[in-house]
């Protein structure tokens, strides 16, 4: 293992001090890389009473262990902090090329401490690390900031991670944008960066990753690329991006429409990736570091009211959220919403979700005209939706309330509006119809950061392709369980996917070729990691390390006071049927509870509290974590 593959760079913005810390191969085997090391660092650094927007919170960037290598689709960066949206654990990840650049600068992780007295940015060029004034950047949007910093660094070629105005204004759905259009989006992570007065992080370097067994690494990289090339779902993503699935979801009645009141949107084709191609909006496809799929889009509007709109994306979540979710079928208008969110640095999932909630409040007449700033709010109301994005980013008028997240907004407004706030733990749910996919429902309920698909993505449960069915057979012992309507064996399926996802994140792999396309299965990952280290790491050890990471993330929330009551689904999804799924679809509380019982038992967590037991933590090498939880009375008593 090369020395620069194992160096954590710390920057304290309060004191201006920087320092480096190296870790051993043993530590890397224990935590695997970015997500695991970040989780451990957060656990060690942050206390239960730490204010997420205060100087004592940390912002940890972790580069995938294999990022910088030729392994395909291995360029993901994980960013970890205590979330201002949930006051719980938060990991979020981004593609692009920023992570690979940090690796080239010689670092695996970057941990930001403290708070600068005024706006600053950090410039890292290998051994040179500078904290520089950023007053001239403050108030600029993401593309402007990225361009200004890139020009200032020229001829040095740099990658930039930055926040827009949303992060500066501490909006709790602000993102950190990397390589301009790749978002570490969820949980208000951009607000944490803004709270530190940190506008941007510029990185560059020429260092190369060192691989202990290059021949083995090359062979397994070749196999992984071949698997990706042969995966039909990867081809759909190359052609149409993530939004190539919208028409399929719609036909199945699974496209969340009008704030999850329906599962079918009449104009779904207009908001699909296919339409972006056919109508000429798609101008370029591009890829993250070392990825042959190239699912990222670059779109422009050439004519009409929104002519001149241009941005990266949009992804499925954005098209579905502002399209079917808000009832908008004007493709150009959705591209405008996407552009605004990317410029301000906003999480499109949360922004679209809180706007849908507001529209529903308006249509149900629980808000006065004055409360909604006189906006003409109804399903499909383009001017109001675009205006709300501005207001959220700048915390103006009703936007100040919405910027706190849908849970806070619904609690404030009341009048029953909590029932259509599609959130859990304070985070808005992504556009997945969990009522019709029981494994997804369980995965969303237990996700430590809140309900979305980027914790465990059990797409195999749909049984759409033979490799997915074989995977379900491997996990459960029977192909029959490749059926999303079943609740049986969902716990086994979710736990396996959690372990796999945590390992993939930590090594830097994207979820698409792994859990979505079944091209990079755990055995491929174990072989690549072994070749990198020059030490044999079995698939079982890799997945066990994934379990350790997932468990530590859970323990962070336990320390914060989370209990079983926090593992649930949004009220609507447990009490109202989706009428567009043949036969109906819902996950009643009793059904979720049954799946939760099985899930906790598999993990070795207490059924009553959901807290990991002492023996479970000891078995995972987390005895120090158990000691700390025991001190505050959060290790469950032994029960019969």
């Amino acid at each position, binding site marked *: 293992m090369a020395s620069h593959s194992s160096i954590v760079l710390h920057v304290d913005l309060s004191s201006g001090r920087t320092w480096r810390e190296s870790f051993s191969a043993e530590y890397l085997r224990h935590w695997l890389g970015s997500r695991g090391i970040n989780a451990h660092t957060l656990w060690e650094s942050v206390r239960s009473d730490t204010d997420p927007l205060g100087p004592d919170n940390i912002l940890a960037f972790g580069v995938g262990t294999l990022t910088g290598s030729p392994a395909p689709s291995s360029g993901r960066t994980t960013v970890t902090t205590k979330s201002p949206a949930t006051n719980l654990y938060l990991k979020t990840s981004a593609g692009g090329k920023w992570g690979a650049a940090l690796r080239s600068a010689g670092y695996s992780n970057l941990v930001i401490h403290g708070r600068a007295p005024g706006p600053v940015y950090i410039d890292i060029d290998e051994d040179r690390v500078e904290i520089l004034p950023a007053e001239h950047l403050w108030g600029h949007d993401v593309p402007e900031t990225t361009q200004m910093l890139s020009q200032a660094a020229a001829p040095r070629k740099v990658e930039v991670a930055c926040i827009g105005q949303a992060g500066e204004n501490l909006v709790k759905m602000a993102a950190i944008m990397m390589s301009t259009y790749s978002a570490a989006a969820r949980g208000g992570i951009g607000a944490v960066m803004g709270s530190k007065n940190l506008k941007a992080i510029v990185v560059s370097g020429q260092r190369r990753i060192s691989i202990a067994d290059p021949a083995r690494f090359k062979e397994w990289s070749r196999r992984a690329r071949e698997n990706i090339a042969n995966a*039909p779902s990867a081809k*759909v993503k190359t052609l149409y991006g*993530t939004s*190539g699935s919208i*028409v*399929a979801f719609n*036909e199945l009645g699974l496209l969340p429409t009008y704030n999850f009141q329906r599962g079918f949107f009449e104009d779904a084709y207009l908001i699909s990736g296919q339409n972006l191609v056919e109508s000429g909006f798609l101008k370029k496809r591009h890829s993250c570091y070392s990825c042959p799929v190239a699912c990222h889009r670059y779109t422009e509007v050439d004519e009409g009211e929104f002519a001149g709109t241009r941005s990266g994306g949009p992804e499925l979540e954005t098209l579905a959220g502002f399209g079917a979710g808000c009832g908008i079928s004007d493709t150009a208008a959705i591209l405008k919403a996407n552009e605004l969110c990317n410029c301000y640095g906003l999480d499109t999932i949360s922004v679209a979700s809180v706007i849908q909630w507001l529209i529903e409040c308006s249509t149900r007449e629980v808000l006065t005209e004055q409360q909604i700033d006189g906006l003409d709010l109804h399903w499909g109301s383009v001017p109001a939706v675009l205006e709300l994005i501005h207001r959220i980013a700048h915390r103006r008028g009703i936007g100040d309330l919405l910027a706190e997240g849908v849970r806070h907004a619904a609690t404030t407004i009341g009048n029953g509006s909590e029932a259509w706030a599609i959130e859990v733990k304070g985070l808005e749910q992504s*556009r997945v119809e969990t009522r019709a996919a029981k494994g997804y429902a369980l995965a969303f309920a237990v996700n430590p950061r809140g309900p979305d698909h980027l914790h465990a993505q059990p797409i195999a449960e749909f*049984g759409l392709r033979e490799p997915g069915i074989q995977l379900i057979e491997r996990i459960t012992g029977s192909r029959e369980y490749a059926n999303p309507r079943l609740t049986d064996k969902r716990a086994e399926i979710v736990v396996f996917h959690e372990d796999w996802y945590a390992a993939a994140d930590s090594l830097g792999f994207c979820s*698409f070729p792994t859990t979505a396309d079944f091209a990079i299965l755990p055995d491929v990952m174990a072989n690549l990691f072994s070749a990198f280290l020059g030490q044999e790491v079995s698939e079982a050890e890799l997945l066990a390390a994934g379990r350790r990471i997932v468990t530590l993330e859970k323990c962070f929330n336990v320390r914060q006071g989370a209990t079983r009551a926090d593992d649930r689904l949004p009220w609507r999804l447990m009490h109202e049927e989706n009428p567009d799924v043949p036969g109906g679809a819902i996950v009643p509380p009793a059904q979720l509870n049954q799946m939760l019982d099985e899930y906790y038992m598999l993990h070795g967590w207490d059924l009553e509290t959901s807290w990991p037991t002492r023996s479970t933590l000891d078995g995972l090498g987390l005895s120090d974590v158990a000691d700390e939880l025991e001190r505050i009375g959060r290790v469950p008593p032994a029960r019969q």
Partner: protein
Amino acid sequence: MDTVTVRFLGLPGIEGGGRQIAVPYTGPMSVRDVLVTLSLTLGSAVLPENLGDTCMVLVQGRNIREMQGWDTPLTAGGRVAIVPIVAGG
């Protein structure tokens, strides 16, 4: 005349015929029968053996994998949708 409606939505490599086609319903028929009929005008790309695993075939909004596959029976007024496979979001 009774018909079965077939919609091709966003599939690469299938040209012509528009996105929605009405096929005469002449008596008991399966998904396979309908696609064979359509192949006469749309070409062999729409035959079951050529559609491959980049797509899903839905009858009345349900995946034929959960029913009788290509032999899933259709009724008059039936709706068939052929869409790209779900690829994650």
